[in-house]
């Protein structure tokens, strides 16, 4: 009789324990674990977004767009040309002529030639021009030589320049020599990735020679040809 009572008591105590365990497991599987899964998924999506934004920022830094302005006296206008030397296509969304924005939608393919994107008629009353384009990645690229309309001489520029940028030559410190019609000789030291600008006064063909130590490692001739050609000549070595 005593044995029977004990087994009955044990069995009844076990029911609530089993129910309690079932409820605990139920809470674990229907509330806690789903919450952790949702949080984990949100974390994963956030990390993906961060990664994508990192790629977009890198693409923004890698844009290599150059703007050239050619001038036409009759009809009086500016011809805006661009060249994409980067590995990504670039979408130009805006052209600035002084403080006036002009919406554009022009895609420049990677490693392109110089392409004309716009002809801008110049009103008579304006004299000096600052040109800039904006890309959809938020970069603004300016044509850094101010153009001036002279009523006697037509289009002129305040400066002519040879710009040199060393990116691919081996070494860190270089000497650049520029020889040509004017001035007869200019030289400077430069570091890799540091652009150098040589201002000149007259158009013509200039020789750009790059030395590492005393050894000549690069030579290029560039022509500044105002008003037909570029006022600023770039040398990429």
């Amino acid at each position, binding site marked *: 009789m005593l044995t029977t009572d004990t087994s009955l008591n044990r069995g009844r105590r076990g029911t609530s324990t089993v129910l309690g365990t079932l409820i605990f497991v139920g809470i674990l599987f229907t*509330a806690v674990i789903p*919450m952790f899964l949702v949080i984990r998924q949100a974390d994963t*999506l956030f990390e993906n977004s961060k990664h994508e934004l990192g790629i977009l920022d890198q693409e923004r830094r890698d844009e290599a767009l150059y703007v050239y302005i050619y001038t036409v006296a009759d009809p009086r206008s500016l011809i805006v040309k661009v060249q994409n030397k980067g590995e990504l296509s670039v979408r130009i969304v805006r052209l600035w002529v002084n403080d006036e924005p002009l919406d554009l939608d022009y895609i420049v393919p990677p490693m392109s030639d110089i392409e004309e994107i716009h002809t801008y008629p110049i009103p008579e009353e304006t004299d000096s021009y600052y040109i800039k384009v904006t890309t959809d990645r938020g970069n603004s690229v300016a044509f850094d030589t101010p153009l001036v309309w002279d009523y006697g001489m037509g289009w002129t520029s305040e400066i002519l320049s040879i710009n040199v940028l060393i990116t691919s030559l081996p070494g860190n410190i270089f000497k650049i020599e520029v020889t040509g019609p004017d001035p007869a000789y200019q030289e400077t030291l430069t570091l890799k990735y540091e652009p150098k600008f040589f201002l000149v006064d007259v158009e013509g063909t200039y020789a750009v020679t790059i030395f590492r130590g005393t050894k000549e490692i690069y030579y290029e001739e560039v022509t500044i040809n105002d008003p037909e050609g570029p006022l600023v000549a770039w040398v990429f070595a």
Partner: protein
Amino acid sequence: MNKSTSMRRAYSPVIAALILSAVVLSVGGAVWAYSQGSMTIIAEDYIEGINELKDTISERFTIEHVANTSTQILVWIYNYGEVAIVVDVYVDIDGGESNSVMNVDVGPDDFVEVVIVFSAIQDNDEVAVKAVSRRGNNAYYRYLAQ
């Protein structure tokens, strides 16, 4: 006599077990419901926080251009990101006045002009422009008045 006594005794453990089970079920059910509710709220709060953080790091805007007249500084802000922004624009003329424009809405891929009025702007005044988004991101521009 003994038999009837033992049969009477058997009811109370059964009732006790039933009551205990009912208590466990009701308390457990309440805890279960509370847990589900609170876990859902915690997960939703976390997702909301993550989304806000994602919007914060997704903001991409720049001060694209600045110009001036004799009494105005004109600031063009370009939002090249994928989320809408609200910016406050602060302009400080070096050694002169400061002024600001608040709550400028700029949608994704949008471009807005902001006009800040001053009493007088001289040629070659150095102007510092700062745009601060409501999510705490900044863009700066320095400009020489012409």
